């Protein structure tokens, strides 16, 4: 086993001073963890990370009181109500308010649209439909297929047919009801499996294959085979979709929007208006939650508001009422998955086939990449052996499903986690034993079990094993397993379940070109620093982390660094803040800008300051608010403010831009092979549940999590992401149920009917820790790892624990099928089915115990 863990055990007191000595040693040890290919690459990249000890070990425990655990940059503004969201921004008194006319049917042709009465409603200023759009009418983000307004074909309930601008929000909403809309209704397709059978796809299917999967099935000791339905998920960002658009003095607009992808909104608004991109500026200060729901689906509202703003010359607001938001925008893709896997007598998968069908809704949106990511993650942390993975993108008459934390990855992982439980029941071993046997490993005798089905060598496999072993011990897994088995044998109604599930999540946009970022750094003559970058703040603490990067590079306190709203006129052509990439990409870009400016300041100091003494350029550094040169007696310290003043007076530029592009990644879609991910982030969770098998009610009694963030940029923020991700993932698999009626209308269209976890769903025992002693093996920003999405999938432990509890009704001979979300209804139905098959234990209760004292 590798010696990486030793790094974390360096004595506390040595932490800051030990850096120069330990850094080279650590470097070597960490190198041992990576493949030859990436080691070479690492050397090429070392230039980027020299100078501050990339592997300098941070030996303080990752707790909320760690020095890097700074509070969110807006925390005080959040708690005092001063943090402004879109609908809080002040605007001119004559600002217009928009309401949308949404389709009441799922599929049909628009035969008549009469808006005359709408125009005469009180307060109405303007009404528009597709004929009023001067530029592009298709606002599909990657592929065409998303009309800004219905032209003729209607594709889902909630599709936008027209829009009204009025003097106030209520007047606009009331006016919408006066429209005359006639539709020739046609049968709607709501079943993605049926759509896939008819080959009704929004994008072509894709296959990844390694080895002879058919032979593997033939040679296997036995085959596990099943299908599953994995439900979708509403984002339920607390701040609904919103934007404010102001017309400019020329042909353009300024767009304030709650949005994860300002550059794309800039492009689409410009195209809809038929003007150059430079006439549109998009600004995002913060979002009240995004989770993927504001990556592509924030743009339509900005486009509509921009149309009104240009037509009327008045500022225009859109904010979608919650019900409209839930009906009009896409969600996490529901998936239908099938698996057929050949297994040896030890329960180790030898190969087989997996098919995932993503329910994409009516248009492509991001579904190509989402179903790809489901395929990339159908292995989770396990080698599939010789396998073929097929992904279909089914078209149905619902809103176009879109990005949501995990981006298809969670739906793909559910396949293999289901299979793990199935295999365990089949061979009569504990599911954890089976999972560990199937983990990627480097020590296999005959076959390589360290390469994915798409050809990427899995990095840091040792970390995965170490992490799971640590968690197994800290959660007391085996002792609790014993206690639960005993409890269940004696308890006819209440059944307990336990499960440990791992996460291995690939980090990088699978669309290679998106893996780039820019930053803009200004130092003003008072020494204060402004950093700007292409990422957006949605609560994940990205701005806080970027401030910390800039402060760390410049040797300043974070108070001296101010981050400003993301704007397309400061850093252009940005990628969405998505794929967990925010800090990885923008952190490196910010650091690049800081390092360039730092070099310029060092050059300036070397040339112009202490000329008589000749400051040593080599040893210059910025620390604790000073430029420091030399050591010991020859050390010179120049305060930051003085340095900046002097540099300014000597006509040195105090502004710099930074740029970063992730190296090494590639994927050939023609052959389904490559290295799509720069690295993997890992984690694992143990969940214990109690299930009432008579009512289907259940409770989560305890959760233990150990999660890998490399060297944490901010432990408090990272723990926040891990905990929040877990709870959101648990909600996805338990209480959050999307339901449509037979006509295709979403009937879970508000928080009264769509139930995200609330305070009471927080497990009473919730032990969450960040893995220590495992810096990222790749050269990421300070050896940290992305943390936005990976913890979401830790929620699978709850689902697997529910299955475990239910399996006790079959004396663990079978893992019952449990589609998701596993609502009390689904849990009850699964329990009833098992009882019908295996006999009812509580019936037995009748016979063994006299019912009434003294008998009947």
């Amino acid at each position, binding site marked *: 086993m590798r010696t990486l863990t030793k790094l974390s055990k360096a004595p506390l007191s040595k932490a800051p001073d030990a850096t120069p000595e330990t850094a080279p040693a650590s470097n070597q040890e960490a190198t041992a963890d990576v493949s030859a290919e990436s080691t070479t690459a690492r050397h090429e990249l070392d230039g980027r990370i020299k100078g501050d000890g990339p592997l300098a070990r941070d030996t303080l425990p990752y707790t909320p009181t760690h020095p890097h655990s700074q509070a969110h940059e*807006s925390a005080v503004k959040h708690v005092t109500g001063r943090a402004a969201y879109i609908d809080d921004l002040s605007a001119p008194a004559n600002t217009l308010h928009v309401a949308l006319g949404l389709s009441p049917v799922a599929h049909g042709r628009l035969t008549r649209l009469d808006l005359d009465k709408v125009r005469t409603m009180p307060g109405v200023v303007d009404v528009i439909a597709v004929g009023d759009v001067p530029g592009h009418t298709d606002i599909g983000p990657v592929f065409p297929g998303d009309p800004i307004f219905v032209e003729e074909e209607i594709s889902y309930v909630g599709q936008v047919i027209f829009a009204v601008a009025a003097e106030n929000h209520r007047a606009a909403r009331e006016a919408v009801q006066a429209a005359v809309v006639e539709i020739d209704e046609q049968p709607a397709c709501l079943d993605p499996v049926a759509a896939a059978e008819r080959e009704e796809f929004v994008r072509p299917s894709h296959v990844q294959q390694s080895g002879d999967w058919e032979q593997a099935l033939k040679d296997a000791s036995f085959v596990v085979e099943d299908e599953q339905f994995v439900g979708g998920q509403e984002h339920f960002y607390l701040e609904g979709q919103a934007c404010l658009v102001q017309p400019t003095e020329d042909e353009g607009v300024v767009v304030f929007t709650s949005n994860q992808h300002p550059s794309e909104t800039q492009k689409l608004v410009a195209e809809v208006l038929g003007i150059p991109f430079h006439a549109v500026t998009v600004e995002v200060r913060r979002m009240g939650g995004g989770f993927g729901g504001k990556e592509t689906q924030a743009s339509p509202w900005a486009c509509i508001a921009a149309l009104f703003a240009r037509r009327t010359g008045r500022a225009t607001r859109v904010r979608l009422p919650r019900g409209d938001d839930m009906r009009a925008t896409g969600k996490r893709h529901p998936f239908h998955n099938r698996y057929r896997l050949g297994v040896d007598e030890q329960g180790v998968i030898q190969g087989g086939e997996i098919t995932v069908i993503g329910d994409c809704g009516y248009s492509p949106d991001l579904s190509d990449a989402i179903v790809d990511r489901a395929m990339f993650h159908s292995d989770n942390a396990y080698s599939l052996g010789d396998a073929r993975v097929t992904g279909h993108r089914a078209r149905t008459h619902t809103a176009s499903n879109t990005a949501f934390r995990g981006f298809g990855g969670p739906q793909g992982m559910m396949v293999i986690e289901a299979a793990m439980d199935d295999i365990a029941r089949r061979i009569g071993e504990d599911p954890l034993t089976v999972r560990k046997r199937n983990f990627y490993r480097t020590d296999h005798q005959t076959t390589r079990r360290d390469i994915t089905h798409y050809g990427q060598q899995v990095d840091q496999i040792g970390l995965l094993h170490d992490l799971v072993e640590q968690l197994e011990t800290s959660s007391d897994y085996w002792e609790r397993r014993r206690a639960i088995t005993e409890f269940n044998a004696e308890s006819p109604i209440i059944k307990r379940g336990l499960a440990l599930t791992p996460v291995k999540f690939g980090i990088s946009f699978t669309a290679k070109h998106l893996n780039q970022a820019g930053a803009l750094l200004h130092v003003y003559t008072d020494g204060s620093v402004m950093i700007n970058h292409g990422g957006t703040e949605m609560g994940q603490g990205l701005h806080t982390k970027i401030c910390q990067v800039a402060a760390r590079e410049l040797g300043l306190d974070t108070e001296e660094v101010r981050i400003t709203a993301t704007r397309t006129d400061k850093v252009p052509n940005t990628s969405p803040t998505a794929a967990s990439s925010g800090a990885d990409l923008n952190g490196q870009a910010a650091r690049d800008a800081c390092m360039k400016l730092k070099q310029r300041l060092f050059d300036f100091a070397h040339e112009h300051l202490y000329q008589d003494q000749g400051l040593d350029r080599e040893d210059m550094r910025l620390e604790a608010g000073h430029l420091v040169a030399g050591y010991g007696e020859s050390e010179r310290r120049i305060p930051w403010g003085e340095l900046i003043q002097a540099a300014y007076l000597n006509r040195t530029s105090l502004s710099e831009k930074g740029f970063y592009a992730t190296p090494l990644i590639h994927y050939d879609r023609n052959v389904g092979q490559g290295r799509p991910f720069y690295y993997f982030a890992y984690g694992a969770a143990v969940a214990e549940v109690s299930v009432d098998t008579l009512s289907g009610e259940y409770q989560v009694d305890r959760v233990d999590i150990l999660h890998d963030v490399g060297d944490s940029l901010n432990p408090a923020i990272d723990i926040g992401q891990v905990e929040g991700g877990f709870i*959101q993932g648990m909600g996805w698999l338990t209480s959050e149920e999307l339901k449509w009626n037979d006509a295709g209308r979403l009937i879970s269209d508000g928080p009264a009917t769509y139930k995200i976890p609330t305070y009471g769903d927080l497990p009473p025992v919730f032990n969450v820790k960040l893995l220590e002693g495992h810096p990222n093996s790749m050269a990421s920003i300070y050896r940290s790892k992305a943390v936005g999405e990976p913890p979401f999938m830790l929620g699978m432990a709850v689902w697997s624990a529910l299955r475990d509890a239910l399996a006790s009704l079959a004396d663990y001979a079978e893992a019952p099928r449990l589609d998701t979300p596993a609502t009390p209804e689904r849990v009850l139905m699964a329990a009833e089915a098992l009882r019908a098959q295996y006999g009812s234990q509580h019936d037995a209760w009748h016979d063994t115990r006299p019912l009434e004292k003294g008998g009947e």
Partner: protein
Amino acid sequence: MIDFLLNGQPRHCEANPETSVLELLRETLGNTGTKEGCASGDCGACTVAIGETAPDGELHYHSANACITPAHQLHGRHLVTVDGLADGNDLHPAQAAMVECHGSQCGFCTPGIVMSLFTLHEQQRKEQDKTLVPLTPQHLEAALGGNLCRCTGYRPIRDAALSMNEHPEHRPLWMDAAAPVPRTGPTAGESLFAQPTTLAELVECLERHPEARLVAGATDLWLESTQRLVRFERLIDVTRVAELNVIEETTLEDGRSGWWIGAAVTYSQIEPLLEEHFDAFAHLLHRLGSSQIRNRGTLGGNVANASPIGDTPPVLLALGSRLRLVGPKGERELPLSEFFLDYKRTALQQGEAIRAVFLPHPVEGETLKVWKLSKRREDDISAVLGAFAWRLEDGILRDVRLAFGGMAGIPKRAAQAEAALEGKTPSSAAFQTARLALSQDFQPMSDVRGSAHYRQISAANLLERLRLVLMIESQAQDATDSPREVMLHAYAH
């Protein structure tokens, strides 16, 4: 005309009858700290604190959802919002603890969370005057169950709640100022938002405007405005009618004694009474809506609304409750079982209102069980709710009343299942008959909360649970080492 104190500052506003406190704040007064998350009272982002002087002369703050609270009900009250909580640059303990515990991420739910923590802190302060009351998990669930947070997973918010008291007390002086004395507006009968203060005035309003809608907590009515854009022509607010705000102990003509609960008494106000006398009912109340809803919603409203999935009607049916109605022709009484006629249709005549709901004293030997099935334990609406009352007399079931919500168009007793158990010993056979009889009693429907099949099976299984509970209680003295749990801790009472 609404006179109130907004964070200590006197305000005098005009508003339409359907204006909500949230609209008044954000659109009229430009106070944007309070957020709109759902406009239906389900997410808590708009939580504010409303202060009013209690009969004991003390000013009490309670949390409320501003999105579904009528602006006119602020008249003569304090309104505290997140914008006013800090004392200059000094954060209130609720705010300071949230910052220190990393309790905000996107920050959009945070103003509502802070206000819920503020009211919890106020409650603690009051209790601390006497003795230091440590917060229990139940306190926290009650205080925070109505605030959705999509980012944090709630752990840091729990930590903030538990550490508030460690922060220095910064509390603006105006928080203890007397509630403003409302200026007199038009008489109750003339106003579009009439606020009668006596039963006589209420009856007069009802006579003059029989078409007017009645409003109490507005926790359901206001959704018609925010979701369906209904404009209320005229509203009669019953919350200030003195006679509707009292709980009177009494004995009925049939000899039963109990309490008349005034129709405008809120859930929060009856909570202590239920906790003392009806453990099962109190437990249900803790799962009804959220604090913000329970502080506003009323028993009278829940009954008058006549929803088939209202939480309290099945319990009241199982308890044999009665109603006292008031109208232009005087008062009348009827059993609750005769009140619900059909889906959302009641025995209320035009111009009539519920005056009080009768809650009988617990009867010696009678047991009540209330079991609610929903997707989420807190702040959810039932898929199925079963309320069961019975007496066991020499091993024989007597006065069996099995009432269900979610199984029919109205809250309804299961007559045939009751008949299967009445006068029988609680045997497997009797319960088997009762379970089968349920499918004659009810043909439930499928909807967003559950399928008809699930409703049928789970309702029958609640009877099985009842049998097991009876069996275990009968064996209570037996020494046994095997687990005898038939319910989860989180749901048991």
